[in-house]
Every structure is written in C-alpha cells, then in structure tokens.
C-alpha cells in the first residue's frame, strides 16, 4: 500500500450513527426532564462503557465475517473466577491477570478451532459457550461466593467528574481504532473479512489474524466480566446471558456489516451509546420489559435495513455519478472491490451490482457476454440468476 492507509470506512458511515445519537439525546432530553443532567449522563456513560468494552472483540470477529457466541459465559466465568479467587487470597493483581489470561486462552481456542480446524464459528463458539458454562457451574458449585476486589469496584463505579470506566473505554477506543487502521493486524482483519481467499493468495497471515481476533474477543469479554463483577460487587450465574444479543446488536446498529470487511469500532461506540440512550429513555418513560424487548428488536431491524439500503444506494450512486466525481471517485468506491471481487451474498435480484459493472469503461467480462456464454460454463457465484432472467424466455422460467 504505497498511498498510505486507504480508508475502509466512509465518513458518512460514521457520521450517521453519531447523528442518531445526538437526535436520540435531544429527543430524550425534551421528553424526559432531567435526562441531560450530568449525574444521569454519567450513569448512562457507565452502562454504555460496559457493553462497549464487551463489543470490542465482537466488532473484530464480525469484521472478519465470523461471530462469537461464547461471550455470555466467557464474561460470566471471568466474573465468577474473579470473586472466587478472592476467597483463596490470591494477591491483588495476580487474580486480575489469571482471569484475563483465561479469557485470552479460551478465545485463542475458539480461534484455533475456526482458523485451523475449519469449524464454523457459530458452532465453535456455541460449543465453547456450553463448555465455559459447565466450568463456571463446577467452579462455583452453583452459587458463586466472594466479593469483587476493591480496585475493580473502584474501576467500575468510581470516578470524579468522568467515571474511570469511561476513561478506560476511551483509551481502549483510541487503541483499537489505531490498531485497526494502522497495524498490519488491523489491515489484515479488513482484508480477510472482505475476501479470505484473496487475502490468503496475497500472502496475508490469514489464520494468525483470525486466531488473534478471537483471542481479543475472549479478552474483552473477560474484561467486561471483571467490570460487571465490580459493578454489582459480586458474581452470579447467568449474568452474561443478557449480553449476547446486545454485544452483536451494538455492532450492527453502528453499521458494521456482519458479512465482514466493512465497519469500524468507532461506529460500534455510537451503537452502544444509541442503544443505552434508547433503553434508558424507555425505562424513564415507563415502558416495561416486554415493550423494551419489542422496541429493541425493532431498532435492530430498522438499523440493519438502513445499513443494507445504504450499501445498495451507494452502488447506484456510483453508477450514476461515478464518471463525474473524478478524484472523489476512489473515496466513494466500495473499498472491498479493491481487494478483489467480493461475494457479499447478494441476492440474484441485486441490480446495483450490474449497474456498477456497466459503468466501467472496460470490455465486459467474458462471463457477462451473451455471445460467448454457454450454460455449462463455470461462472461466478451470484451471477447466474441475473443472466438467467435477462436471457431466458418465459418458457424456461415457468416454475
């Protein structure tokens, strides 16, 4: 990359979720008196920080096109282990390191299974979740004993004007963003998420990248467990279950594609803020738990849909104005295309894709030309449907 870091994220994609955060804040401030008071905002930011820190790993794994379903019991086991170690009088600091090491190790096993043994991420992390649940149950014997160490409680709940955990979150945000944009690992995450095979052929350390991402996911889930143990002062079984859906939801609401290769942690932070504001506003307005569940699902659906529309609109936009945009064109172009043809799982009815292709001034690819195409020919996935519709007669399409 001679031109320096090429952005995988368009400014608009970051601006939209943050604009929604501001809109939600203003709306909640008008609807609920005292919503924008500093004490409430500080409580809000603490809640957002927990889910935001837990979602660091989930963001990386989703950027790779994977998923980590072992978050709930990774988190839970970390909390149970942390309070349990207090009873065995492990030195302060050592217990912290043991728990973090456990998260890292279990995450690494996830990564080994996914990268080396080719086990589907969904099943690998699902199985790992079950195993960690068993370990947590056996370790705690059903009822976790002990209290969180003082420094963890201070870290989770303390702070003067700005809570410590929010400062920690901000530091992590800076570190993660810099890592994703400037390091070899971060660039590999996007490349592998866009097209694993192309990355492999380009000589990127695909397997190492995947393993690192899952290890980080385990680490941040364990960190989240430590913080939550500090928040409630103790640990209980099932405390992680409430974090599976949100850890994925905040990433999706931020606009990161779960198909991989598109998005950033900055957007996830906006997603965490947005969901926390909406949830808090609903509680203060008096919407009960069932209503919150329904709205939670609705928000995810709407944001995922908008995100999906934004992708196809962008393609149409490029097809229409691509030639006139000149220097801006490279900036507007979907970055994934630089890494090679990306199968984004588009339906055969996807028209935007063809429009982009026809905009290029080059000779149409061989497989697109009607005169040379033969039905028995090997063809790129996802293309057959379009062509079949274009070139087939009604007789061949009757079903």
């Amino acid at each position, binding site marked *: 990359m001679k031109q320096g870091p090429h952005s995988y994220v368009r400014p608009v994609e970051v601006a939209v979720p943050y604009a929604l955060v501001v809109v939600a804040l203003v709306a909640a401030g008008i609807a609920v008196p005292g919503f924008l008071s500093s004490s409430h905002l500080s409580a809000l930011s603490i809640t957002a920080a927990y889910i935001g820190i837990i979602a660091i790993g989930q963001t990386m794994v989703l950027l790779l096109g994977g998923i980590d379903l072992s978050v709930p019991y990774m988190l839970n086991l970390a909390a149970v282990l942390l309070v349990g170690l207090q009873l065995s009088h492990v030195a302060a600091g050592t217990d912290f390191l043991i728990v973090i090491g456990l998260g890292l190790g279990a995450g690494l096993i996830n990564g080994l299974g996914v990268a080396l043994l080719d086990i589907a991420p969904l099943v690998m992390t699902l199985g790992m979740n079950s195993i960690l649940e068993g370990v947590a149950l056996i370790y705690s014997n059903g009822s976790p004993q002990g209290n969180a160490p003082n420094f963890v409680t201070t870290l989770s709940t303390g702070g003067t004007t700005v809570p410590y955990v929010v400062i920690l979150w901000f530091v992590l945000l800076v570190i993660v963003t810099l890592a994703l944009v400037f390091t070899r690992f971060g660039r590999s995450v996007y490349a592998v998420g866009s097209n694993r095979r192309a990355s492999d052929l380009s000589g990127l350390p695909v397997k190492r990248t995947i393993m690192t991402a899952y290890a980080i996911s385990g680490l941040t889930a364990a960190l989240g467990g430590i913080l939550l143990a500090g928040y409630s002062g103790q640990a209980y079984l099932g405390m992680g279950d409430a974090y599976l859906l949100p850890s994925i939801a905040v990433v999706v609401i931020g606009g990161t594609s779960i198909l991989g290769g598109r998005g950033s942690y900055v957007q996830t932070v906006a997603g965490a803020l947005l969901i926390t504001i909406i949830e808090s506003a609903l509680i203060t307005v008096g919407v009960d738990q069932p209503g919150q569940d329904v709205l939670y699902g609705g928000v995810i659906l709407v944001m995922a849909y908008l995100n999906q529309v934004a992708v196809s609109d962008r393609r149409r936009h490029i097809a229409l104005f691509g030639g006139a945009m000149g220097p801006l064109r490279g900036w507007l172009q979907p970055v994934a295309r630089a890494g090679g043809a990306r199968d984004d799982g588009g339906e055969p009815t996807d028209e935007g894709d063809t429009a982009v292709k026809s905009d290029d001034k080059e000779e149409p690819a061989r497989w697109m030309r009607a005169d040379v195409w033969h*039905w028995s020919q090997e063809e790129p996935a996802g293309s057959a449907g379009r062509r079949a519709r274009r070139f087939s007669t009604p007789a061949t399409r009757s*079903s």
Partner: protein
Amino acid sequence: MSAEPQRERPARAVGLTRPTWHRSYTSGALVALLFLIYLSRSGWTFGGIEALGITNDALPLALAAVGETFVILTNGIDLSIGSMITISNVTLAVLDSHGFGAFGLVIVLAIGAAAGLINGLIVCFMRIPPLIATLATSSIYLGFSLMILPSPGGTVPQWLSNWTTGDISSSNFPIAGLWLVVTMVVGWVVLRRTNFGIRLQALGGSESSSWSAGISVVRVRILAYVAAGLCSALAGVVLGGLTQSGDPTIGAVYLLGAVAAVVVGGTSLAGGVGTIAGSVLGAVVLSLVSAVLLVSGLSANYQYIVTGVIVIGALLAHSVQTKLSSIAAERSRRFVSVSTTDGQQ
C-alpha cells in the same frame, strides 16, 4: 448436470435421492454408544420410566431441531426458534384458560406459522442477513410473549397432556417415542418426496443455479422459515402438554439447543446437505447425555461441558469426513481425466 438446458419444469421429486444419509450415521452411532453406556451404568435395566424421561426430554428439542434444519438447509439460521416456542407455549396456556380448547391449538399453530412467515419476509425482502433478522425478531417475539403471560401460569387441556406425555395404552412404550418416529417419517417425506423439499435442498446447494433452473427461490426460502415457525409452535404445544402450564422463559434453552442438535445430526451449516432423521437423533443424543450423567451419579454441571465437546467434535468429524471424501473425489476425477486424455491421444 442435465444435457438439456431448456427444461419446461424443475426436476420432479420422484426418484431423486442424494447420498446424504451417511451424515446422519454419526448421530445414530452416538445414540447407540450413549445408550450402551447408559445401560452399563444403570446395571442393564431399562424400563418404561427411563424411556419416558428420555423421550419426553427429546421430543420438544427434536421438533425445534427439525424446524431449524429446514432453515439451515437454505444456508440460513433461525435464532428465533426459542422465542417462537415461548410465544406458542404461553398463547396455548392463556387461550385454554379462556376456554378455547381445541380451537386454541389451531390458533397457536397459526401464530407459529405467522411468526415464521414474518422471519422469511424480512430475510427475503428486507435482505437483512438471517442471523441479525432472526436475532431481532427473537427479541420482538419474546416481548410479545411477556405481554401475553408475564409470569408462569395458565392451563393446558388434559387431553393434550395425554397425547404428548405418558405411555401408549397398556404398554411401556412412551407416546413421545412414537411422535419422534412420526417426526422422522414426516420430515423424510417432506424433504425427499415433495417438490418443496427437493427445491429446498437445491436452494441450499446453489442459490444461483436454483434460480436458473426456474425455482422460485424467494417462495421456497419463505416456506422454510414458515416450516421452522410451525415446528416451533408444535414444540411449544408439546412443552405445554409436558408442564401443564405456560412459562415465558421456557424457550430460552432451545435457541442454542436446536442448533446443537442439528449440528450433531450432521446437517451442513453451509446449506443443502442434511437429514431430518439426523436432527431428531441429534436431539436424542443431547437428552441421552444428561440421562447418562444422571445415572452415573455425576453432577448435572458436567452436562454442559460434555454437550459442548460433542457439538464441536461432531462438526470436526463432519469437516474431516468432507475433506476426506473431497480428496477421494479429486483423486478419482484426476484419474478419469487422465484416462480420457489418453484415449484422445
């Protein structure tokens, strides 16, 4: 591939079979193995009570797994299975306490199918990835369940309990075992002997090729989600019969349990390859695991670890199996191509 591209209608179901049965052998072998371990632990006694416990445990999970199989065969995933089970369970309990009786059952099945239809419409027309779409609808359905029945309660008709639990009259054979067999047979017929089933497998194998072949991809995919909703509703009804009441937290276990049973049953998460019988056997494996641990006197806490290891191990076994067979196929293909070139020269 056929040599005739201009086909009037897509392939008929009759006589079409695909060699996917070997994928369900693993779960069959696991069932046999676990059953032997169970017998050796229990001192070679296996009576009606034990069979009743295992089959009653397995039936709801098997129904959920069958529903999940339809969706996974289309290369999707349905994470709202658990919530659809919950919503049908609580609806059944509330409707019966309002005196709906058998008509309530019809309404419950319709609600399950409608929930599945909504999933399918969202996946097909809003084009949100199935994982996110069903995760979101899962939250929505759970919210509605909690609105319908905030805390466990309600009643379930007695005849329904008689039909889902207990033994077949004057024998030791549990009625849930009969339903397991019926599920397998019906699932086999739907998947192998109807046009829907064949098109479903074609869709999972290659969406673009199915489209070219004239299969209405959208319709088949939506029907798969509807089937998942219907199976979840059945599972919710069975759970209602077993527990004699409604419970808004009852479905949570089945979200991941169903996926686990499908994976143990040998259905490929990449879509297109799988069997209903495998998923049913996978559900039996998971309930046998807890039965074996129980009879061995081990803490039930070990159940989670063993289940996790079995799920990962099953998928590992299948990926190794696939790799070996693809290597073998590659070898034979190379052999054929070499011999044809020789023939031409």
